[in-house]
């Protein structure tokens, strides 16, 4: 297996009359972390939702390990190993922390993320396992959301703004865990508002502007000023027409 683990080709997607993505392509290698950056409304969440199967693309192709999964129904996507940690966490509020984690675990692939392994990674979840998810703090909820996704033993983990609304110390703790998660053989596609954090945590970065990829490259080699210009769609890099940097 030499091709990418996840391959997104020329994807168009959106909501009813509103098209949010225009010909987006990206690749994710096994055990690789790619950061997806861009301003609000750039299409980052739409892209993750489409890869996770919640939205059906109007054009393009999504392949996992070479197999086309574009038309696969949403519930099948998680079982194939593509799992989303949604923006705003979206836990099942009336279920306990542990029940949340057990939801995908009933129909999962075999893998390293047993309940014990998850509690070892997230001791704060273990301490709150019998509490209702809706009553947990923001940081605890985020930990449960990541644990719930890992419980499916995913091959591709889609993280949508895990740091949103959390204290910096807790955000540091989450980013400190990413190498551990990656080392278990999981590829991560990461959406993050904080560019510096996104670049530090990833091997490659892709910048979206108004639904199009305007820049991509090795995270440590990207010119930060050019990236910020691409992020905001500054005149130096107008969408579609500007200098598209590809590494």
């Amino acid at each position, binding site marked *: 297996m030499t091709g990418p683990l996840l391959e997104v080709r020329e994807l168009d997607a959106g909501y009813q009359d509103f098209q949010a993505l225009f010909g987006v392509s990206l690749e994710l290698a096994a055990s690789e972390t790619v950061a997806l950056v861009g301003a609000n409304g750039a299409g980052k969440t739409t892209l993750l939702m489409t890869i996770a199967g919640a939205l059906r693309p109007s054009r393009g192709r999504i392949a996992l390990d070479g197999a086309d999964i574009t038309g696969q129904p949403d519930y099948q*996507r*998680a079982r194939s190993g593509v*799992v989303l940690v949604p923006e705003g966490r979206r836990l099942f509020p009336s*279920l306990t922390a542990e029940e949340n984690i057990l*939801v*995908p675990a009933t129909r999962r692939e075999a893998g390293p993320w047993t309940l014990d392994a998850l509690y070892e990674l997230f001791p704060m979840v273990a301490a709150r396992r019998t509490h209702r998810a809706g009553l947990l703090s923001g940081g605890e909820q985020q930990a449960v959301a990541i644990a719930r996704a890992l419980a*499916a033993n995913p091959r591709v983990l889609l993280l949508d703004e895990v740091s949103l609304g959390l204290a910096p110390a807790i955000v540091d703790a989450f980013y400190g865990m990413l190498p551990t998660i990656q080392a278990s053989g999981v590829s991560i596609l990461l959406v993050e508002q904080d560019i510096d954090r996104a670049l530090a945590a990833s091997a490659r970065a892709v910048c979206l502007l108004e639904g199009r990829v305007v820049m991509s490259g090795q995270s440590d080699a990207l010119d930060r000023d050019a990236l910020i210009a691409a992020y905001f769609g500054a005149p130096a890099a107008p969408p579609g027409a500007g200098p598209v940097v590809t590494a």
Partner: protein
Amino acid sequence: MTWLNDVLQGIFLGGAYALTAVGLSLMFGVMRLVNLAHGDLAVCGTYLATTVMAMFGVPLWIAMLIMVPLAFLLGAVLQLSLFDRALASGPTAPLLVTFGLSVIIENLLQQIYSANTRGVPAGNLDVAAVHLGALVLPWLAMLKLVLAVMVIGGLSALLQRTGWGRRVRATADDLAIARLQGIRVRPLFASVTGLAIAAAALAGTLNAVTTGVYPTLGALTLIFAFESVIIGGLGSLWGTLLGGMLLGVTQVVVSQVSVPYATLASQLLFLVVLVVRPQGLLGSAQAAG
């Protein structure tokens, strides 16, 4: 002591209401689907049981053993064929679709069985009772109350303690995310509706032992079931039992003073609960919002 007996009869009546209503409560709690054909489906179960009795010459309890699984299947098939599509078509579609189904069922039953009231022969089960001083404990009413507690307790245990229940509750919390976590919603909803209709058919048949059955009985059945669910609190199965009992006690106690006012009193109780505690007695404020 007669007032105590009245309250007791009211509680028994409440057990019957709750057994009828629990499926309505379950379907609303899980899918936010108000099934206006619930009472008619209960009546379908009753006709099915009487048909099985007539065809095979078996007693009621054997007919019910055959009928209840068929009612489960009927519910599952309706969910897969009609209700899923209705749920996907906006908030008013389920009301229109189940109302239409209600009209269709009532007319079909009239075509097949005529508009006459049919008895459901059950030996002397409808009159047999234990007398404890001034208290009367009718066997059929006790059976219905025990079944109501068993069905609600069983459903609660399934929902709280099994993987199936966990998936049902997760789906009720957040349908889109449940799908993304690998839950296949169609068979899950089919099983929920199957259980709901099976319980309704069981209740409808036992109720008809006393009252008999006729094609338009479902509309009346629906009103009391619906009020039990609302009074007890949307989404709470034990609340439905409590709601049914309050409704039953109100009805029986008031009927001792004036029979015509008994139904009015239960409607007033319903109205008062809606005004004072719109989320119902055991419902959460969130469910009402």
